[in-house]
């Protein structure tokens, strides 16, 4: 295999600029030119890649996962990450690497045109190397996409389930949308943390905005309410729709918590429990200044 | 399944149980467990660890940080050469205890784990393996 590496090394050394130009042209053919800035960036990246590729091939290591191939891997990781974040497709990202095949094959044909066996062997080895690098790029891309999605999910979660302090010592958690097991767990944990942080002895969990509740979600709700009680706080459930009430009874679930039809009712109860009363004040005869 | 790290600890005194809790916590943190998941596996380790010391006549704990594809986890193996558990089904029931405890050791630890296995027979000691995955 060392012969093959020497072949590649020699090709890159002797035909660097033409190879680079042909490679960039090949990429443009596959995914289009992009805008001027992108084209410049890609050209710069391609030049650096070819230089690093040459250096790594020269180390005589055949394994692209080995330490000697780190510079190339890092370059591909950066490329994949940037493209993933910018919203490029997997193909658009991988083409960067795979488009190098044709120009290399052309050079090989030029070099070994008369020797079919050698040409076949070199073409096969080159193809394998590019394939491995291309697959590595796709792996990095996939990982980067997952990270973006996870981060977005967390941000969405925080935005859609805020814990509000309705009054001193009274928190409210209005749940919106369908709850899945993972989301419910995260939301419930953050409610418990807010209870500790604010010292609120009552938490109103409002599910007006939740269309359905399944067994798993109901169990999470029950566990959270029990955990809050263990910590020294009480929960009030509010906004249970008729369908959900039926589901709960149908599933035979013991809610074991006070539930009120509306958040307003729950708030009234919470205020009473904390020893507060709402009194009526006589409004002034004249309209107050804005 | 890949074992990324492997650690063995003695479980002979109640001070060892304290050390076991700290070691399991460290492994769980290294495996990237959330705080709640850490708490669950450390609590399970404390339950079984105490059993090993109190009822098993002392033994050892093996802590492994494992990987199954993308998933990471922590596996604990408790071994003792004590009297063994005569009736496993009974022992797994909540409230059952031969000591003065709440009798939640085995059943409780099982609820806190994703995987839980007990091998025991009178006179043959006990091996309890539990694992928690992210």
């Amino acid at each position: 295999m060392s012969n093959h590496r020497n072949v590649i090394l020699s090709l890159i050394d002797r035909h660097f600029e033409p190879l680079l130009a042909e490679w960039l042209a090949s990429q443009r053919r596959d995914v289009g030119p992009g805008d001027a800035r992108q084209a410049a960036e890609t050209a710069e990246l391609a030049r650096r890649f070819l230089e690093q590729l040459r250096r790594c091939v020269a180390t005589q290591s055949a394994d692209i996962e080995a330490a000697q191939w780190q510079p190339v891997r890092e370059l591909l990781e950066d490329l994949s990450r940037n493209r993933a974040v910018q919203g490029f497709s997997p193909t658009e990202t991988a083409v960067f690497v795979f488009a190098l095949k044709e120009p290399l094959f052309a050079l090989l044909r030029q070099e070994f045109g008369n020797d079919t066996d050698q040409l076949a062997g070199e073409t096969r080895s080159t193809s394998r190397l590019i394939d491995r690098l291309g697959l590595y790029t796709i792996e990095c891309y996939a990982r980067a996409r997952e990270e973006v999605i996870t981060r977005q999910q967390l941000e969405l979660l925080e935005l859609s389930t805020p814990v509000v302090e309705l009054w001193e010592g009274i928190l409210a958690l209005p749940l919106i949308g369908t709850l899945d097991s993972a989301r419910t767990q995260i939301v419930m944990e953050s409610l418990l943390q807010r209870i500790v942080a604010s010292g609120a002895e009552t938490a109103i969990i409002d599910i007006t905005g939740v269309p359905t509740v399944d067994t798993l979600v109901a169990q999470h709700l029950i566990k959270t309410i029990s955990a809050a009680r263990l910590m020294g706080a009480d929960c009030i459930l509010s906004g249970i729709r008729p369908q959900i009430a039926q589901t709960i009874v149908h599933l035979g679930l013991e809610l074991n918590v006070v539930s009120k039809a509306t958040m307003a009712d729950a708030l009234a109860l919470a205020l009473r429990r904390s020893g507060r009363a709402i009194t009526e004040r006589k409004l002034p005869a004249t309209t107050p200044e804005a | 399944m890949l074992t990324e790290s492997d650690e063995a600890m003695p479980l002979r005194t109640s001070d060892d149980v304290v050390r076991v809790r700290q070691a399991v916590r460290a492994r769980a943190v290294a495996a990237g467990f959330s705080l709640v998941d850490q708490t669950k596996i450390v609590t399970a380790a404390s339950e079984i660890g105490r059993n090993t010391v109190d009822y098993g006549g002392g033994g050892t704990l093996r802590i492994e940080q494992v990987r199954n594809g993308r998933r990471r986890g922590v596996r604990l193996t408790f071994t003792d050469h004590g009297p063994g558990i005569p009736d496993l089904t009974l022992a797994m029931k909540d409230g059952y205890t031969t000591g003065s405890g709440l009798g939640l050791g085995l059943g409780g630890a099982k609820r806190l784990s994703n995987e839980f296995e007990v091998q025991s027979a009178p006179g043959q000691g006990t091996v309890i393996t539990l694992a928690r995955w992210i």
Partner: protein
Amino acid sequence: MAEIPILRIGDCLLVSIQVDMHDRLAMALQDDLTQRIVADHARGVMIDISALEIVDSFIGRMLNNIAAMSRVLDAVTVVVGMRPAVAITLVELGLGLTGVRTALNVDKGLALIRRIIDSPEHDDADRVR
């Protein structure tokens, strides 16, 4: 061997569990507390577990024992400062803290003890646990 200090606040005793407890320490604490309740005529016992990262059935047993002994000696026990992760794990574990009331922190714990002791129906109509 370290001892767990017991502080007196009015007619209440406050115990703050800071260390990872082993059996001897737990036994010593139960003994010390019982003696102090009698010696100080304490009406309330507050156990601050805000420093505990885990509560297993052993600690649970200890808390239940303390509550039972205090009740016999006519004192109210309140456990304060339980961490969310601990509470979630205890629920999963299925551990019931019977006869133990809970509050979010020391202040609320003291207020709770006051309310219970001062109420005409002491110990009546408690919340379901």
